[in-house]
């Protein structure tokens, strides 16, 4: 990209028109997230009014059916949705910053699939080691990340090629998942649900370890926000500003892998959160990572929570896995994005 024929994206000039400053936006996002969280606790095949829930909680009647649904089913599920959305969206921001590629996202370049493959192998071949699931998912994610990074850095391939390579890697890894699924048909977990991505089996126990990983990952990403900012000036400028570019890129990719691996370990292969959310957030706050990361985290939480809620309520008592809804929304969005970019270069 040359200074003078630089991408002329109208993004931030648009945001001047809304007149929303980043802190206000974050506050709005947080408010929406809290409202949605409350809604996710109340709505479902059985409606629980907030009033009933609070009364039951205060009366100490923990065996009341409504409270049991609330505490053991809806609470873990809502927490899982928020955590998975946050993790995948922030992972998307980080991967896009490292690869200088707005098309990159954990599901597009195969990071989710890498995590999925190792997770499925662990579940099928070593079902006894299930507590190491997030760890296995992390290593799968790192492997896929490393693969894409090496290809994009060593060959100097352009953005579109890297995206296509990522899609190829992603397809290979998905085939690997299917192969494991076919070879071990008797394993206990629900492989189809895992591939689509869903939150129906989430419990507070399975969330504990990924939750720690995700929160630590997001805080570390916030801490390194200025480094991501400097990376966006290009490798040479980053180097001349005294940054160890390789180390920074690897650190950010590892963080993205921790986040994506943790999310995949309990939510399966949720697609498109990591792609859509950073793009929407960027429209509001621009390429400033100390705003982009929290905005994407909150936005990701909102999106997954909303999709999960709709999936549960729309066809109650049946439910549509959140992954299906996300892809239904994400697919068309990705197409629009590709078309918009092409128009810009023409």
């Amino acid at each position, binding site marked *: 990209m040359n200074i003078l024929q630089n991408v002329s994206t109208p993004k931030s*000039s648009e945001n001047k028109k809304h007149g929303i400053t980043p802190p206000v936006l974050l506050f709005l996002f947080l408010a929406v997230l809290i409202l949605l969280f409350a809604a996710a606790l109340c709505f479902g095949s059985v409606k629980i009014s907030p009033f009933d829930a609070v009364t039951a909680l205060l009366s100490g009647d923990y065996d009341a059916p409504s409270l049991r649904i609330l505490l053991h089913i809806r609470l873990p599920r809502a927490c899982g949705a928020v955590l998975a959305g946050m993790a995948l969206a922030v992972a998307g921001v980080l991967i896009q910053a490292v690869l200088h590629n707005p098309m990159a996202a954990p599901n597009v370049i195969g990071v989710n699939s890498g995590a999925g493959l190792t997770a499925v192998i662990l579940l099928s071949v070593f079902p006894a080691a299930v507590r190491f699931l997030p760890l296995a998912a992390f290593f799968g994610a790192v492997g896929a990340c490393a693969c894409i990074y090496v290809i994009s850095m060593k060959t100097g391939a352009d953005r579109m090629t890297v995206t296509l390579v990522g899609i190829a890697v992603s397809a290979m890894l998905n085939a690997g998942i299917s192969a494991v699924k076919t070879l071990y048909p008797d394993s206990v977990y629900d492989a189809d649900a895992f591939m689509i991505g869903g939150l129906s089996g989430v419990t507070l126990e399975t969330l504990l370890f990924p939750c720690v990983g995700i929160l630590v990952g997001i805080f570390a990403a916030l801490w390194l926000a200025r480094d991501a900012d400097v990376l966006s000036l290009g490798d*040479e*400028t980053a180097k*001349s500003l*005294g940054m160890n570019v390789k180390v920074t890129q690897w650190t950010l990719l590892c963080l993205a892998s921790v986040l994506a691996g943790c999310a995949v370990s309990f939510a399966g292969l949720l697609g498109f959160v990591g792609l859509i959310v950073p793009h929407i957030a960027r429209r509001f706050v621009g390429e400033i990572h100390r705003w982009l990361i929290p905005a994407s985290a909150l936005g990701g939480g909102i999106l997954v929570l909303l999709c999960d809620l709709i999936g549960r309520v729309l066809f109650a008592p049946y439910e549509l896995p959140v992954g299906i809804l996300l892809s239904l929304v994400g697919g068309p969005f990705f197409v629009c994005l590709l078309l918009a970019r092409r128009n810009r270069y023409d």
Partner: protein
Amino acid sequence: MIEVRSVFFSYGGKSVISDLSATFRAGTLYGIVGPNGCGKTTLIRLLCGLARPTAGQISLEGHPYGEYDRREFAKRVSLLPQSRSLPCVSVGELTARGRYPYLGRTRRMTPSDRAAVERALMDAKASDLRDRDVSTLSGGERQRVCLALLGAQDTPCVLLDEPTTYLDLSSRFSLMEQMRFWAEQGKCVIAVLHDLSLALRYCDCVGVMDQGKFCAFDTPENLLESKAWEQVFSVRCLPVDAAGEHDVVFLPIK
């Protein structure tokens, strides 16, 4: 300030810089000119530590480059590369990124960092652009913002790789004025330039490069007498005097 001692650099078996020596002093504006492919950009990359010489040594303030850690070096030498990707952020935000080498582990901007950003914006005459989005700027404004970014890094040595290319005439002059301003502040400013008359007009010292080394490195006055560019560029130069202003024009040798 920067001392280059018999430096060689080869890339893929091809020698790009061969036995180049030069001394760059503080408070001086250096112009480096030369035909395409003579190794100007490579020299700049060597000077700012992006490439390491295959043989020879470059030292800064008496210490070889290898003795500096990345951040310490970035507080002393800054670079304006030929092309740089500019993200969609405001000018003020972009300029602040030049303070990166000064930020501690917490990556927080201190009041002195903010003051340095303000000063850099003012020096580059970009204060009024502060809230504009970088993507909406014209080429000349964009280059001013890049200079503000360099100014925020606030280094005693400033390297610029073809900063005037693609700029219109008045932007070129204001850019050269900015470089003169830095030199007068006591900085060592080294710029690769394509425009010979611009280099002769503004620089204290001009290095003419050919085939990986300086074939002339002298003040504009002495260079004009030595006619070093006749073999290098195959051009002759004619002095122009108009309204008390002296300048030169370059014409092809017939």
